[in-house]
């Protein structure tokens, strides 16, 4: 393991590809290697009427953080204006709510600001972000650039500039696109990767999850027709695109997500 871990790992890809399980297994691996790593995800996309609050929990020895938008916004403004009372007031005003909810991507700016602040407060912290599905990952990465252009000056401009330099620092951030071994999913992952590449210079790697071929490569002939064909398609895809794939994770026989996570543990260290 020559690679020094990055400070921020973003796992993205379409829903149902196993991002959550994979990112949790990855955190577990980092913790095993005595890094201070946490699993982080976003609770909500807009400032709603019900305020859920940031939540932190230790689940099976792994620290999970679920960020709430309103709490994150309040924390951000508090830091900037140095007043909890003002911050609480501002996030409750209709103007601010309109601003955040009407200006798409503002939510991600707030969340990313919070994540980078956490990284700043604790220089040893490694954040593993279970990011929203594809299109939204692009919105998220684009948010900082958009906001630099929207706010031409002021604290948010300065912060967006700072965030951008962190997000775009290959030594700080790494993006993992998770794909299924189907042609459609692969194609979408390639498109997502190139979309992300246009927006950030950090390393972006695609891994393939849930491969039947990789689980049963010796026994394909014994599978029923549709599954055999599926596995053969996987084989073809994996062989043709091997150079573009960071990892291929086999289909897990486990039934619950915790056991699937444990199945992945053996091979996730490649993602560091």
């Amino acid at each position, binding site marked *: 393991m020559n690679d020094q871990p990055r400070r921020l790992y973003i796992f993205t*890809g*379409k*829903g*149902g590809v196993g991002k959550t399980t994979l990112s949790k297994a990855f955190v577990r691996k980092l913790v095993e290697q005595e890094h201070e790593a946490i699993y982080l995800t976003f609770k909500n*996309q*807009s400032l*709603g009427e019900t305020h859920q609050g940031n939540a932190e929990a230790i689940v099976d020895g792994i620290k999970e953080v679920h960020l709430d938008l309103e709490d994150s916004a309040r924390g951000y403004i508090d830091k*900037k*204006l140095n007043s909890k009372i*003002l911050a609480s007031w*501002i996030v409750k*005003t*209709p*103007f*601010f709510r*309109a601003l955040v*909810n*009407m*200006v*798409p*991507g503002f939510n991600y700016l707030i969340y990313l600001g919070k994540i980078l602040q956490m990284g700043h407060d604790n220089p040893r912290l490694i954040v593993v972000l279970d990011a*929203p*599905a*594809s*299109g*939204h990952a692009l*919105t998220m990465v*684009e948010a900082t650039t*958009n906001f630099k*252009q*929207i*706010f*031409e*000056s*002021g*604290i*948010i*401009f300065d912060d967006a500039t700072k965030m951008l330099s962190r997000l775009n620092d290959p030594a700080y951030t790494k993006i993992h696109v998770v794909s*299924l071994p189907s*042609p*459609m*999913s692969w*194609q*979408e992952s390639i*498109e997502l990767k190139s979309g992300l590449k246009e927006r950030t210079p950090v390393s972006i790697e695609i891994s393939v999850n*849930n491969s039947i071929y990789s689980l*049963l490569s010796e*026994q394909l002939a*014994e*599978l*029923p*027709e*549709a*599954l055999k*064909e*599926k596995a053969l*398609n996987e084989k073809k895809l994996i062989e043709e695109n091997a150079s573009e794939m960071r990892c291929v994770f086999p289909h897990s*026989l*486990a*039934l619950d997500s915790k056991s699937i996570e444990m199945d992945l543990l053996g091979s996730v260290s490649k993602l560091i």
Partner: protein
Amino acid sequence: MAITTKSFEIFCGTGGVGKTTLATSRALSLAGENRVLLVTIDPAKRLKDLLGLRSEDMGEVTRITFEGIELDALLMSPEKTITRMAASYNTPDLASNRIIKVLSRPYGGMNEILSLVEVQMQFDSGKYDVIVLDTPPGAHFLDFLESLGKIRSFFDQNFVEIFNYLGQKTANAGKKVFSFNIINKVISGGVKKLLSYLQKVTGAQFIDDFIQAIQIIYQSKEAFLKGLSLQDRLKEKSQCNWFLVTSVEQGKPQEAIELRSHASHFIHEDHYLVLNKCLENELRDWSPTDNKLKNFKSSLEQRESLLKTKLRESFPEVLEFPEVTSISPKDHIQHLTQNWKKHASQS
């Protein structure tokens, strides 16, 4: 139960479950007897190629032909929709404001609201019997519909009055669009304070541009409100079918159930859970002898049956589509189209 064809057919679901492909095949299955428009957000290149859509077609209604079936398709482009709105409502500022421009980039985040506005504009054209809408991925679209009430309140006079007041207060906010006379002093006092704090964070120029953007959006309120009024139609059982799509592969019944409960006062009884990529038929007649394969079979069967049990408990109707592994996407679409026809004729 047969599925009745409605004016609006909405496909929701997280990405990667075959939502766009299912919406496309549904549109094709209806196209023979109806004038159909398929509105889709961001299909994979393979599907675009298959339907003969080119990148240049983005944002324009395009006639496509698939195996002899003709229908119109529209790949959403937020930028083009904004331009169309500006033209048809004669509000050129809409297409020129700096903030609106940045936000209407493909990933700027205005996909949801603009797809509603677009569907409404297309429906008003009277050219279509059925519009099939493939929504942006995730729970986001339903979250978004849920929040429509809040957006509607944006266009309430009181709210906009504040922005107009701010517009007058900020030096170079551009032309004043509306004039309202009475501003509540308490509100304005609070707003002044808020502004002075916010300017520290956002910079003064942003406040000006944002206020201008809001005024411009307000000018185009007719278009937005019409788009929003679409939600009333979608609530009508006679006007709309909802399809919540998930897949066996994805194995997340909870997500589909939450998706629906999120929108419980929105979705009427004509909603279908579409379960894609079912393996049940395939596995039934397979009797492997090897232990690893036995485990494999039983894990797949258990996962699928757990999933179906949960879904059937929560949805009035579950439509099953089998896993289709034929490598040709063309065959895949045809197969799904046939399946829709089968579902439509079942009674």
